[in-house]
């Protein structure tokens, strides 16, 4: 990594005329351990976002300092402090997991450094603890789940069975789901975090005969669950709906078991807008794997930062100008319509997607809009105007 920074710095010295400055961005994400793949997707998306702006951000030469939080809040906090104090970065972006976000949030905004979340969006930050130095190009944690609740409600599903891991994000997910779902919740099952085998729970849910199943099993848990659910022969009789369980980061390991399952997200790979089509085509070409929602979010983070720097003419000390520019969000988001709410979270659409096999590839393709211009439920607690 050092080499890369040196190379970037050297390139900056050589290429830029005298007086031109660079912009330093601290990119904190989880790059190691089972969650490491998410950090890689974020980083690749972010770097493609810079590349598409001609390798510059708002005319300045970017230096991206990549830090691994190892999915540990304390490691993330150390990384943030190093970036703020030693490297004196202008922006911090990335952040996969909400627990890491909660650890670094205070110190970053207290230093009056803009924090652009590419993924994590825990509810306290969206509500009472919101900050004029925080913006997200992802979503508030509840909303993809709320969107699925609304979809099943609209579809007229009467009896739904809910499952999630037994930790805060799992509970938030099911709370979000129930915000718009008004039918009967047959049972709400919480399993141990990183539980490998779900045969006991699957047998119990089979006996309960619900109309549909909704789960939140991110990462490896989702791979295990979806495979075992398909092997039990249930995908056809009790349809499987989920969020963050079947996506471009997991589907290769799930294989055909993922076919015919549904999810909700703010973006799908087949969204028909020029910004997205360019992003998807170039992402596939450059990295040789399928772009995920994570990559799309971070791509937009890079676009947002570039647009803001451009608006203030590269004057990074003009915090008020930068904030006004962030709020305007003057860039073409890959998700289509995009604007910021008062709490720095997007107001955006949510889409239903289905996993299908097309030309031999497993893809999550859009199946219509579930929510239009959805604002999160916590913005009303945020005192910002």
């Amino acid at each position: 990594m050092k080499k890369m920074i040196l190379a970037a710095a050297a390139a900056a010295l050589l290429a830029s005329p005298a007086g031109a400055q660079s912009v330093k961005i601290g990119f904190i994400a989880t790059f190691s351990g089972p969650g490491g793949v998410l950090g890689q997707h974020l980083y690749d998306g972010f770097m493609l976002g810079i590349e598409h702006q001609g390798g510059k951000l708002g005319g300045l030469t970017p230096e991206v300092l990549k830090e691994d939080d190892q999915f540990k809040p304390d490691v993330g906090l150390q990384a943030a402090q190093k970036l703020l104090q030693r490297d004196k970065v202008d922006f911090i972006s990335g952040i996969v997991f909400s627990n890491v976000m909660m650890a670094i949030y205070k110190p970053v905004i207290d230093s009056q450094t803009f924090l652009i979340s590419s993924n994590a969006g825990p509810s306290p930050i969206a509500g009472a603890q919101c900050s004029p130095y925080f913006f997200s190009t992802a979503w508030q944690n509840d909303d993809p789940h709320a969107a699925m609740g609304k979809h099943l409600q609209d579809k007229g599903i009467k009896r739904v069975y809910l499952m999630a891991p037994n930790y805060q994000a799992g509970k938030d997910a099911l709370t979000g789901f129930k915000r718009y779902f008004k039918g009967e919740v047959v049972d709400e099952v919480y399993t141990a975090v990183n539980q490998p085998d779900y045969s006991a729970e699957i047998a119990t849910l089979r006996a309960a005969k619900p109309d549909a199943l909704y789960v939140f099993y991110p990462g490896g848990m989702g791979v295990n669950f979806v495979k075992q659910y398909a092997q039990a022969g249930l995908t056809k009789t009790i349809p499987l709906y989920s969020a963050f369980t079947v996506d471009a980061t997991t589907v290769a390991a799930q294989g055909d078991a993922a076919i015919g399952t549904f999810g909700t997200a703010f973006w799908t790979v087949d969204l028909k807008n020029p910004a997205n089509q360019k992003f998807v085509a170039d992402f596939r070409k450059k990295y040789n794997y399928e772009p995920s929602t994570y990559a799309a979010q971070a791509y937009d983070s890079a676009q947002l930062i570039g647009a803001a720097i451009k608006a203030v003419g590269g004057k990074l000390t003009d915090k008020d100008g930068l904030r006004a520019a962030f709020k305007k969000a003057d860039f073409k988001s890959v998700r289509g319509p995009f604007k910021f709410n008062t709490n720095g979270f997007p107001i955006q659409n949510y889409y239903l997607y289905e996993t299908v096999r097309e030309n031999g590839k497993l893809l999550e393709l859009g199946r219509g809009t579930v929510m239009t211009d959805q604002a999160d439920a916590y913005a009303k607690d945020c005192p910002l105007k």
Partner: protein
Amino acid sequence: MIDPQLLAFQALNGLQLGIMLFLMAAGLTLVFGIMNLINLAHGSLYMVGAYLAAAFQGWTGSFLLAALLAVPATLLLGVVVEIVVLRALYEREHLDQVLATFGLILFFNEAVRIVWGPNALFVALPEFLSGQVELPLGIIYPSYRFAIIAVGLAVALFLYLLIARTRVGMLIRAGATNRAMVGALGVDVKLLYTAVFGLGTALAGLAGLMAGPILSVESGMGEPILILTFVVIVIGGIGSIRGAFLAAVLIGVIDTMGRAFLPGLLRAAFNPSIANAVGPALASMLIYVVMALVLAFRPQGLFPARGA
């Protein structure tokens, strides 16, 4: 009321989980009992077994062929690890062994990421095992899980015959009882240790490759099962294959039944908000409670190796 069909279903699930744990525990308990070595990297060898199966399947296109290749490959790796790393540890304290084998966990977790990348790998089920079997009582059970039960029982029988009826088995039993004496009688203990470790590794690799189609083949997949395996060998009695088998099935059934029925039972007794908060936590704690009770009242384990 608990439905008898569901109960039978969960009993099968418990048995299947138990069989899986047995394959892991058999190797670990032999290594611990005979070589007096705490091997935290046992879960890593399970992971390597799963990865190798995935790789060989990608290469040959057949799960069975992949399985036939992955077991000896894992065995070979185990022998290399034993010769290169573990030999230096036999005379050291348990704490040194824990540190060194913990280092092996980190090494293997990172190594598979370097070789196969950070994404989880996919292992396809063989076609003839991808369906479900219908049993009496209207139970529909995945065929592949039946295959796991069958293979596990066959391995248990093989181990029983190996240990009770053969000369190698006699040495293993003697080694578990008194290592120094076996050495003094002129048995090549070094070779015996390598053989035992290789056998344990092959079993872990077998467990890993059979887990491949059910679980996510990813870096770190060995740790959750390693913890359960230690619980099994503590309850079963260290060094005892019979103990490992019975304790594995016991733990499999207790864990499954707890997860399946405890939250419901609690809900009948307490108000739903308390039951929802306590149920899942208690269900995942249950086996540790059992382990604590065994340690308190029968610290040598429920079925210790004879003469140990």
